[in-house]
């Protein structure tokens, strides 16, 4: 309950700053995944109680790709009905023009947060969105099964392939025909860009487009990494993985039908839930390493942005401040294992007790690999689409990785022409 008091105190502080008690009706739009919406509602209730404002949640589908299309449409139409947008970490350069600059309003808050996250949301000196939580994926594994077959959690992708195959085959022989070795996000959408970037980067194949805008994806190490993933489909991963997003993968995992899963930390809280078939039977480690010897985690995370078309900007900013605050982030981490952007929270004993993954993930977040949204600017979505298409085609057996990456490079060159804009 101390937490609740902290939130209350903070909200009161926010209110004083905002300088008015006029009750306003706000609308916040966010995608729905796992327990995010119910957790958000709880925090909004606390905000409503303190501020006197009311906040309505506009719920969106889970796919970030679907959300983006809708948001762009609303923003370009100057929609006044939505005040606060929950935005993906990669969107800032593309939507910067439609959001309010938060750098002045958040002056006192900014130093508390991870500078690289703040940096990712800053476009030409304008703070486009304020961090709500960050994200870096984990390799989930069935500790009971690994123990049963005397295996260690894999350190490399090769080990993962081997262990997954062995356990899957033995489990199937033992009558567990539904068992799969490994599930991940293989559907053609933004999530696959993350997964594939991790395979490629951990194999020393670069980051698709380098930070200075060079197209680097067409190299042997990248091709080898994607070929390796192609080898999983139909052997250790079901073929349906080519249409799996986060929630589909979690569905297979949480019903106890997968040995390994690549997913974001939100799945940790849900897998440990009462209705989970894998409760108490799983653990997490950072993703395996490739040839580079290093593991690569794709940097994710969601932020809050205030629409410049909002009629209640002050109240909206107060809401963003509230939801991004240390107290709110702590509460969120404890309930849903969403990773905080306030570094000090990784040492918080209360969080470590409630969600052990958070305490272990400070370092993973620190070393997370960003997607090339900064160098490719407003063209990022198209770059990402070309990348996930090339990878999905390879995984589904249409062409080799080398050929598809070669073609990808040409397409990216055509996109870039004389420079990213």
């Amino acid at each position, binding site marked *: 309950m101390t937490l609740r008091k902290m939130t209350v105190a903070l909200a009161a502080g926010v209110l004083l700053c905002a300088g008015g008690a006029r009750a306003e009706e706000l609308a916040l739009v966010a995608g729905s995944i796992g327990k995010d919406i119910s957790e958000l509602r709880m925090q909004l209730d606390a905000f409503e109680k303190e501020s006197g404002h009311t906040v309505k949640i506009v719920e969106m589908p889970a*796919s970030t*790709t*679907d959300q*983006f*299309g*809708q948001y*762009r*449409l609303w923003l*370009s139409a100057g929609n006044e009905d939505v005040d606060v947008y929950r935005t993906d970490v990669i969107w800032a350069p*593309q939507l910067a*023009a*439609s959001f309010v600059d938060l750098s002045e309003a958040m002056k006192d808050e900014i130093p508390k947060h991870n500078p690289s996250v703040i940096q990712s949301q800053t476009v030409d000196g304008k703070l486009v969105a304020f961090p709500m939580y960050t994200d870096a994926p984990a390799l989930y594994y069935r500790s009971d099964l690994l123990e049963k077959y005397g295996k260690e959690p894999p350190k490399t992708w090769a080990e993962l392939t081997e262990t997954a195959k062995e356990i899957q085959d033995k489990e199937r022989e033992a009558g567990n025909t*539904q068992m799969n070795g490994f599930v991940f996000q*293989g*559907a*053609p*959408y933004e999530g696959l860009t993350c997964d594939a970037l991790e395979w490629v980067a951990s194999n020393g194949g670069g980051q698709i487009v380098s930070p200075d805008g060079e197209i680097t994806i067409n190299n042997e190490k990248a091709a080898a990494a994607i070929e390796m993933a192609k080898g999983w489909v139909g052997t250790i991963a*079901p*073929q*349906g*993985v*080519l*249409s*799996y997003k986060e929630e*589909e993968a979690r*569905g*297979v995992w949480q019903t106890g*039908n997968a040995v390994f899963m690549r997913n974001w930390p939100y799945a940790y809280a849900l897998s440990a839930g009462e209705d989970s078939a894998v409760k108490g039977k799983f653990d997490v480690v950072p993703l395996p390493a490739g040839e580079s010897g290093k593991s690569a985690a794709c940097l994710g995370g969601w932020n809050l942005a205030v629409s410049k078309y909002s009629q209640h900007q002050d109240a909206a900013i107060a809401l963003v401040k509230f939801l991004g605050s240390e107290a709110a982030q702590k509460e969120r981490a404890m309930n849903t294992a969403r990773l905080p952007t306030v570094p000090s929270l990784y040492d918080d004993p209360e969080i470590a007790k409630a969600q052990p993954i958070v305490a272990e993930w400070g370092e993973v977040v620190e070393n997370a690999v960003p997607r090339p949204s900064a160098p490719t600017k*407003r*063209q990022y*979505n*198209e770059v990402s*689409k070309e990348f*996930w*298409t090339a990878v*999905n*085609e390879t995984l*589904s*057996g*249409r062409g080799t990785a080398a050929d598809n990456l070669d073609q990808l490079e040409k397409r990216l060159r*055509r996109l870039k*022409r004389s420079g990213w804009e």
Partner: protein
Amino acid sequence: MANVQAGVPPTDKALDVERKGALARSDLSRQRLRSAWLFLTPMLLVLALVAGWPLLKTIWFSLTNASLADLEGAEFVGLRNYWEYVDYGDGEGEYFGLLFDPQWWNAVYNTVYYSVISVAIETVLGLVFALVLNAEFKGRGFVRAAVLIPWAIPTIVSAKMWAWMMNDQFGILNDMLMTVGILSAPIAWTANPDTAMWAVIIVDVWKTTPFMALLILAGLQMVPGDVYEAAKIDGIHPVKVFWKVTLPLIRPAILVAVIFRALDALRVFDLIYVLTPNNTQTKSMSVFAQENLFQFDKFAYGSAASTLLFLVIAFITLFYIKVARLDLGGRGK
């Protein structure tokens, strides 16, 4: 005077009457024409407002460099979104633009493939359904209503429903086929590149066959019963009756139903967007346009795709009307 009048040849008089008649007729027809225009104007105005204006606007945007972030700042760039040669200055160059975009042509191919196959299956199945529903049997009214249920369900809902039914792990479709023994391992219907398009076609056929059945049934009910009686008395085989009597008589109804469906199918968006998002094997022209308009920062390019989509559909429709010798003027044969 009377003499003079009498001297006027009778033909002149007849001509006069005729001329007067023609005058009166043209007066009347002019009046009718006027009132026709009067009655049509509101509809034409509304059409121009809700169909013409957006269409013109889209065509205009396709000739600019518009970005969704700044629509007012759009500048005219000619046909660059359709066709552009970029000279790299060293004797080499490359063509850009929609007409040189393999992804666009892939979308056109997908759309046409999907439309031809799904409309063909729907027409045959719809005809069978209509023939069954046209027969007298107990509870016909109920069956007629029940058949319409798939058509009444919103596409988004049916697409999502089928997505779950086709799910590789929990889907009922795999479960049923495996229980019967047709499949030995589950198929990932929507993810497998070989089955993705068929998954879309299956759902579309399920959803739209009732619509075809209904339109064809309406045609069937126009066929007078005495034709059949005559055929029966002459002892003609029912199969022959179908080919020689029924089919020619309902041909206009079928052709109209097919064109309705084909227009719909060529614009397909929601089903594909929900069932197999971002899949290259099923991406239709509309999905391609939406992607460029809203996902990417290429509003002008997406507008160009929309314009071409309009032209492709218009071309196919005109071609179809010509080939099918469809009588849309209402003059009869």
